[in-house]
């Protein structure tokens, strides 16, 4: 089965490992991800804070490309890219003047056809159908992940239908269960890490990250798992700083959900690029006999 794929800027840069993992893991599950041609940056959170027209127009161009791709569905792994693209699609469904205004500059016009999927939409479906379970060759016993959704997986500044519980989502937990990992119940699943504030308002962000880390540790988690490259980068790259400032000595590796799925399906650790974490991520797995 082939579906359209929008990786976004992060998956072509600092989170390139996630791009590779998505392709490999979904490939093993029979989903061939076809990257749409010549896609542009969706504008992420910055466009919405700078210019409302661009906040819609930028992801809109990608919708036009997707509509012309010949595929019925498009999967977007990054929570921010997915969020902005869904918001643009919704706005353009009703504001046809705006749609025409944007379409007049595009060669691949927006037609409103493409169905957008988040990575969890796809993975949860593959879990419930038993496909992931049937491909698990190594149960991730001993792994106790705190599933971290961040802000954008379940929250939108508009009326968008969410397929999971907004305050206490279960998508990643569902997948983890199929992998044999025991996800912990915890309080900070959807709490903000500060996102770009890690660079432009560091003290605030470090405090928010420390709260997340502290709760995960207190619940007995031995790692974090996430689907968003921003969440992963922040909780991974700044964990040392946050832990040091707030007196948290434990360090939890921050995995992408695809790393855990890949690992349990027998994909080689080097291929998954498990060695590209700031908080060392292979030691825990080796200790549990999973590597």
């Amino acid at each position, binding site marked *: 089965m082939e579906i359209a794929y929008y990786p976004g*800027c992060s998956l072509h*840069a600092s989170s390139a490992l996630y791009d590779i993992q998505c392709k490999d893991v979904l490939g093993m599950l029979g989903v061939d991800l076809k990257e749409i041609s010549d896609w542009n940056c969706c504008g992420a959170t910055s466009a919405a804070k700078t210019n409302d027209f661009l906040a819609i127009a930028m992801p809109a161009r990608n919708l036009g490309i997707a509509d012309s791709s010949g595929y019925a569905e498009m999967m977007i792994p990054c929570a921010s890219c997915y969020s902005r693209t869904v918001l643009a699609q919704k706005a353009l469904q009703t504001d046809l003047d705006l749609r025409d205004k944007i379409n007049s500059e595009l060669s691949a016009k927006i037609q409103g056809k493409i169905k957008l999927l988040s990575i969890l939409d796809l993975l949860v479906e593959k879990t419930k159908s038993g496909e992931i379970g049937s491909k698990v060759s190594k149960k991730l016993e001993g792994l106790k992940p705190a599933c971290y959704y961040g*802000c954008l997986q379940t929250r*939108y*500044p508009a009326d968008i239908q969410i397929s999971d519980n907004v305050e206490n989502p279960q998508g990643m937990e569902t997948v983890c269960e199929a992998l044999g990992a025991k996800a912990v119940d915890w309080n900070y699943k959807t709490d*903000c890490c500060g996102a770009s504030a890690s660079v432009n*308002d560091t003290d*605030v962000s470090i405090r928010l990250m420390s709260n997340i880390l502290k709760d995960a540790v207190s619940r007995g988690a031995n790692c974090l798992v996430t689907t968003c490259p921003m969440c992963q980068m922040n909780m991974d790259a700044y964990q040392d700083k946050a832990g040091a400032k707030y007196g948290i000595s434990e360090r939890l590796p921050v995995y992408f959900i695809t790393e855990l799925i890949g690992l349990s399906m027998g994909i080689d650790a080097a291929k998954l690029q498990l060695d*590209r974490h700031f908080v060392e991520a292979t030691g825990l797995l080796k200790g549990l006999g999973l590597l």
Partner: protein
Amino acid sequence: MSSQTLNIEIKTAGSLADEVAARSGQNLNACYQCRRCAAGCPVGEDTGVTPDRLIRMVLLGDREEALNNLLVWKCVACYTCGTRCPNNIHTARITETLKQMVKEQHTEPMNAKIANFHSAFLTSTSHFGRVNEMEFMGIYDMKTAVNEIKKGGGFKSIIDDLKDQMQLAKAMNKLKRMHFGIDKIKGLSEIKRLFAKAKK
């Protein structure tokens, strides 16, 4: 929590609220100050202004206060306030709108660093169609440095920021998470035309 008196500006009250409501698409008048938003705001304790207070400022017409308070800038758009609001008021859309209004009136934003970050991001996307992390950070650093110098500040904060960034860059490089290539899209002219249309 400081208790700050907000004054009603009779002459401008209606027009500011209308402008913000129209641009943000949010019905500010529906707010009845239940403060569910305040309870969930991750930056509330840092700003002293919670979403409900910001709405109040806008409704009372205090334009100066509404555009120049810490929440406008420190709001990270986590969307918790709007998700929990019983009246569906997405205050993050209001802070996004107020950030844009400050930019349009060409006054110094209260937190230039945050403002520069977002405009640098967007500028970078207009160069190649996709963000090049290094180029974007370069633009951000330059804008922030110039601002600091204009303010008459010393070089310490600029250097401290650069040190932090270099440390991160070093770690990223070691982990092979730095991306050095330029990803220029073929349809860049379409992006540039959209950017031009945005200015009108």
